[in-house]
């Protein structure tokens, strides 16, 4: 090619390829932590709006990972009486409760044959780190029945290494059916009110049938009890994404 001055042509580097990371983008959009969704009630939405602003502020400073009930987490909290001034606890998340800033999650583990459950507040400033060690969902939203299950189902190694996550897309569902200690249990888990799918009931047939007496089949058709959160969730998700990108 002939240039204007007779010198060799200036090197034009090839245009950089534009990488659109669709996988991480999708992950941000799909998950909305349940404590953001306001409950049905007569409280002023202003309260939830202010709480959400504070929650977003905290999330900008401290990373709260996406986790569900059934994940194994390690939480480091600040403790003035410990030698390192911090305390680490590993456990399986059995329930996530509360809305707004008071959102909590309960971690359970069996340490030296003693079952221990600790309820942490997600937005407490004493929490220094939350690591997700094992990612798996279970069949139920509430694993309180692990208290009445054999202790092997609640023991997790304190020095467990985090299991590497394969896909950015799906979280595997563990269809484990847990075996229980002999009755009496803390709650009658066989009753349809709890709707538990993750227990292998070894009770006799007549007891299972007797438990069905407490079923309320009309509750499924009671339309006014349904709370449709899809539109609210969309709005809150948009708000969250906007705020976190700033």
């Amino acid at each position, binding site marked *: 090619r002939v240039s204007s001055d007779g010198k060799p042509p200036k090197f034009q580097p090839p245009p950089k390829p534009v990488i659109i990371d669709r996988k991480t983008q999708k992950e941000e959009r799909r998950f909305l932590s349940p404590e953001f969704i306001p409950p049905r*009630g*007569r409280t002023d939405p202003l309260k939830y709006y202010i709480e959400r602003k504070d929650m977003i502020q905290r999330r900008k400073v401290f990373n709260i990972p996406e986790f569900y009930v059934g994940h194994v987490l390690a939480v480091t909290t600040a403790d003035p009486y410990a030698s390192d001034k911090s305390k680490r606890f590993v456990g399986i998340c059995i329930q996530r409760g509360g809305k707004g800033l008071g959102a909590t999650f309960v971690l359970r583990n069996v340490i030296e044959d003693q079952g221990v459950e600790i309820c942490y507040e997600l937005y407490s400033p004493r929490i220094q780190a939350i690591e997700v060690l094992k990612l798996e969902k279970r069949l139920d939203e509430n694993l309180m029945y692990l208290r009445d299950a054999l202790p092997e189902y609640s023991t997790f190694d304190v020095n467990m290494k985090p299991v590497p996550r394969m896909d950015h897309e799906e979280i595997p569902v563990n269809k484990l059916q847990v075996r229980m200690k002999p009755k009496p249990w803390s709650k009658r888990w066989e009753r349809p009110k709890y709707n538990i799918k993750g227990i292998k009931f070894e009770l006799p047939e007549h007891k299972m049938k007797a438990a069905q007496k407490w079923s*309320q089949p*009309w509750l499924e*058709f*009671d*339309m*006014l009890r*349904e709370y449709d959160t899809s539109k609210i969730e969309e709005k809150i998700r948009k708000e969250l994404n906007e705020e976190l990108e700033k």
Partner: protein
Amino acid sequence: MRLSVAAAISHGRVYRRLGLSPRSRLDLLRNLVTALVRHERIETPWARADEMRGYAERLIDYAKRGDKDERAMRMADFWLTEKDLIHKLFKVLAPRFQPHPGSYTRLLQIPNRDGLDRAKMAVIELKGNALPPLVRPRRDSDKTLLNQLLKGYRQDAQRAAAT
């Protein structure tokens, strides 16, 4: 330390207690919803009509999803005891209310019942029905002072515009 709430306090409870049990309450409301869909205007005690209103409107919202929807069909099957009304719900009522986003019913109070209980009665009807209207909108009479003055003003403005 009192561990349970006293039975008489019902703060924040939205559902009225009708009939003999929760199952009976739903059956009562189901019969009323079926009657409303059949006759499009019924006269019942006010409390029952008020409870029923929410369920009727949600049923129409489900019907708007279309009859191919599995859940909508199950809901209609449960709530309408007379099965020919399922066809009426999906083919007549759903298209009628398609442009409206909500509020498909009208609830109006009636003088108390004639029997011994003197119950507070109400009429609940689906909007857009073929029956004669319950409330005739009354126009203001032409003979009031304000209306006469306004009429005069309008006539003056017309005369001024004409010239």
